[in-house]
């Protein structure tokens, strides 16, 4: 089996990793790591014979061996170079370089009593909250990449918003992937844990960028736990280099009347996959999982979502849109699972794809598994080319063909970006979308203007 051999470098790398620098970690972390590597050893790198991976061939990733990045300084990496990734000037910025916290590049200024520190810090060592949540939510028994991340667990960010506290300034976790030319191909294993206590709220942005144009492997895990009546806005911006491999497991757990509003932008990466699962554990919890993927060339972009309605009266809404050009491939698999007791569930799942080239392709599977009878669950998927009627309309008003196509494409994207509640994040995502389109269709393409937010029609 090719996959048997593909995982061997990681197992060997883990042995080396445990042998040197990582030995200073606390016992609970070491314990998690050995559980992680054991599970990864059993699962192996997933092949296309697994239903979950049918359309996502990770052979190009499996072909190369990526060794875990050591903690080191990169003199060329300066605050000034990271400036343009800033979402909001006064944001609480946590910069992780290849998965390791960089205090010098970060800028943190909390006034409220927020429990926030990196996992390699002294504060995390004996912290009961960290131990309660770290690697407890992302399923490493079935998810090989979550297991692999756990096997190399040594740093990451832990954020706990205390009861009743609202943090207005966004928390921005900037994951930078960087390698010098003389380094071997590097893997980084970022981890973010966000827990919101009762009646608290915050906005968390997680960005993934590459500072070098070499193949690298980012395998991230994000765990978000919302206590009753809490609210989290989570925005993920993945804009790594087109040669990068990006695997991200996002795991959410929501308690009664909590609200989670997620957005995932996927633009970079040769192969990128976000596996988002949310468990609705408390009644009247509400989750929105939205996303936009843009791919060109030979990029493969993949979103897997799993929403588990475990209790009555929860709502979940998903809207994923894709813009595909070149020979790009997109995969969307969404599953909504409704337990027998989860009556009065209200769920909607939509996937729309805009194909800009004859050679692009899409595999979409919006799935429902329903065991309760009093529910409202709908899903829909569309795949289609440019709406030429709209293009004609714009052309008839004197707008050039390329610009007209750009405007229609922007309109397509704006429908989903407007679901980002946090204004600065929305502007950042919009700007990225526009600049990507301007590269192809010219600078006359206008900025995205949202004409007031409105709820999606049922």
């Amino acid at each position, binding site marked *: 089996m090719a996959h048997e051999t593909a995982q061997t470098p990681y197992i060997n790398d883990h042995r080396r990793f445990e042998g040197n620098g990582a030995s200073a970690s606390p016992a609970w972390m070491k314990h998690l790591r050995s559980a992680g590597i054991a599970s990864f050893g059993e699962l192996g790198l997933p092949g296309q014979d697994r239903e979950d991976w049918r359309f996502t061939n990770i052979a190009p990733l499996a072909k190369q061996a990526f060794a875990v990045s050591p903690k080191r300084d990169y003199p060329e990496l300066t605050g000034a170079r990271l400036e343009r990734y800033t979402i909001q000037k006064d944001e609480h910025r946590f910069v992780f370089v290849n998965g390791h916290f960089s205090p010098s590049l970060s800028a943190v200024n909390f006034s409220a009593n927020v429990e926030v520190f990196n996992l390699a810090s002294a504060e995390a060592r004996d912290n009961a909250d960290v131990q309660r949540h770290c690697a407890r939510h992302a399923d490493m028994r079935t998810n090989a990449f979550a297991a692999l991340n756990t096997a190399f667990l040594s740093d990451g960010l832990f954020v706990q918003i205390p009861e009743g506290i609202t943090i207005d300034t966004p928390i921005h976790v900037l994951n930078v992937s960087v390698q010098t030319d003389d380094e071997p191909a590097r893997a980084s294993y970022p981890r973010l844990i966000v827990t919101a206590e009762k009646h608290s709220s915050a906005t968390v942005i997680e960005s993934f960028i590459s500072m070098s144009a070499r193949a690298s492997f980012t395998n991230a895990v994000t765990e978000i736990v919302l206590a009753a009546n809490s609210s989290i806005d989570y925005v993920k911006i993945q804009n790594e280099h087109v040669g990068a491999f990006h695997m991200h497991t996002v795991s959410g757990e929501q308690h009664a009347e909590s609200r989670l509003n997620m957005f995932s932008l996927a633009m970079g990466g040769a192969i990128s996959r976000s596996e988002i699962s949310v468990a609705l554990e408390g009644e009247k919890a509400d989750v929105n999982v939205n996303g936009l993927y843009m791919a060109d060339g030979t990029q493969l972009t993949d979103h897997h979502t799993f929403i588990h309605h475990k209790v009555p009266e929860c709502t979940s809404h998903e809207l994923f849109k894709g813009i595909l050009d070149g020979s790009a491939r997109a995969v969307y698999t969404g599953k909504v699972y409704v337990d027998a007791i989860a009556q009065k569930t209200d769920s909607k799942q939509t996937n729309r*794809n805009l194909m800009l080239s004859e050679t692009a392709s899409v595999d979409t599977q919006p799935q429902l598994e329903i065991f309760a009878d009093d529910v409202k669950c709908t899903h829909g998927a569309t795949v289609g080319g440019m709406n030429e009627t709209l293009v004609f309309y714009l052309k008839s008003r004197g707008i050039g063909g390329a610009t007209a196509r750009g405007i229609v494409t922007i309109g397509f994207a704006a429908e989903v970006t407007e679901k980002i509640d946090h204004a600065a994040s929305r502007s950042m995502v919009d700007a990225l979308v526009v600049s990507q389109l301007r590269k192809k269709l010219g600078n006359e393409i206008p900025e995205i203007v949202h004409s007031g937010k409105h709820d999606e029609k049922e």
Partner: protein
Amino acid sequence: MQEMEELVNKEYKYGFVTDIESDSIPAGLSEDVVRLISEKKGEPPFMLEWRLKAYRHWLTMKEPNWENVTYPPIDYQSMVYYSAPKAPKTINSLDEVDPKLRETYEKLGISLTEQKRMSGVAVDAVFDSVSVATTFKESLSKVGIIFCSFSDAVKEHPELIKKYLGSVVPSTDNYFAALNSAVFSDGSFCYIPKGVRCPMELSTYFRINALNTGQFERTLIVAEEGAYVSYLEGCTAPMRDENQLHAAVVELVAAKDAEIKYSTVQNWYAGDKDGKGGIYNFVTKRGKCAGDNAKISWTQVETGSSITWKYPSVILLGDNSVGEFYSVAVVNNRQQADTGTKMIHIGRNTKSTIISKGISAGRGHNTYRGLVKVGPNAANARNYTQCDSMLLGNQCSANTFPYIEVKNTSSSVEHEASTSKIGEDQLFYCKQRGITGENAISMIVNGFAKAVFKNLPMEFAVEAQKLLGVSLEGSVG
């Protein structure tokens, strides 16, 4: 709700075993059994070769396990692969048919004489694996239509069989298709020549009778250029405690401008309240729109079988060809259904429509699984899919697994699905106007499934609506 109880516990109406001497071979499967079947049927050598090739390939295959159904492992060596009623050797008229057999048909309400005289439907009645009587054969042959049992076709029209057998579902296609190809007992063959519009609805009633006999039917329908045929398949099976495997293969070939309409009402024994007994219905059904402007339409009403596992598919090869799939699947008690369709768009301007209505009650599990695949050359392909589920009770499930693969830009694929229950307000409204709960449920469910029923031929539509009433447990209220 007592009425509901009665409705639920309604005995399987068609549960009886006809005591006719059958010609069976010992249980078990081997190359010798395949040879024996072929020999008993007096088949030409090419047929035996084809069977053996399929059998040898089957040995190399593994039983699939990706489906969303569970059942105990099937012991393929404990089954009898051939069983034929000992009927007179040749039949010239209906009077020569075994009276007991005739009686069975009377009970089923498909009296051959009645059918012949009244309804204008030609019935090729399959009684356990061998076709014993074919009606209307003469009037069909006048316009050049061949409608006969598969065994007869092998002997009388070997050139057609050689040309089309396995052309849509190859013997190596999947585990159950390979098994069927090796041991298929009989089935129906239908050939509509160029430009002929079949003057009547063709129909085959399947019936599983002898104990422990897996039924391996094979149907092949070929519509030549400009031809049209509407084919009905309906089935009932006697009550039985042991699970019976039914692994049929249906192949449809539609040439240029031809149209085939294939309708099924499936009401095999579903097992008792605890899921004991019942038929395993693992079927491969596929049609090929081989020529331009061809059309294939599948309509199915699935109410029986303990496990239904089938995906009537259309390969849209010819330009402008059309594929349709209309389905109502009902599961109750411990029934499981994993059914849907595959629409493979290869030609340009091809169109497909999928309407699926799943109804789950009791502890039933209903899964819609469908594939819409648009190839790179299928310019301007269109697909519209709608799959709705209705749940009655909270111990059942409704699952939807659509697969959409699109490889060009000029196509448009739309998928919509919803899940709902019978609203208490809907029920209240009906009851308040003097309609009993049972009738109200039946009415609402029939309304839910109407989009599919309207595609059935009239006599089937009536039967289907009655079946729905019988099959459903109204645990709402």
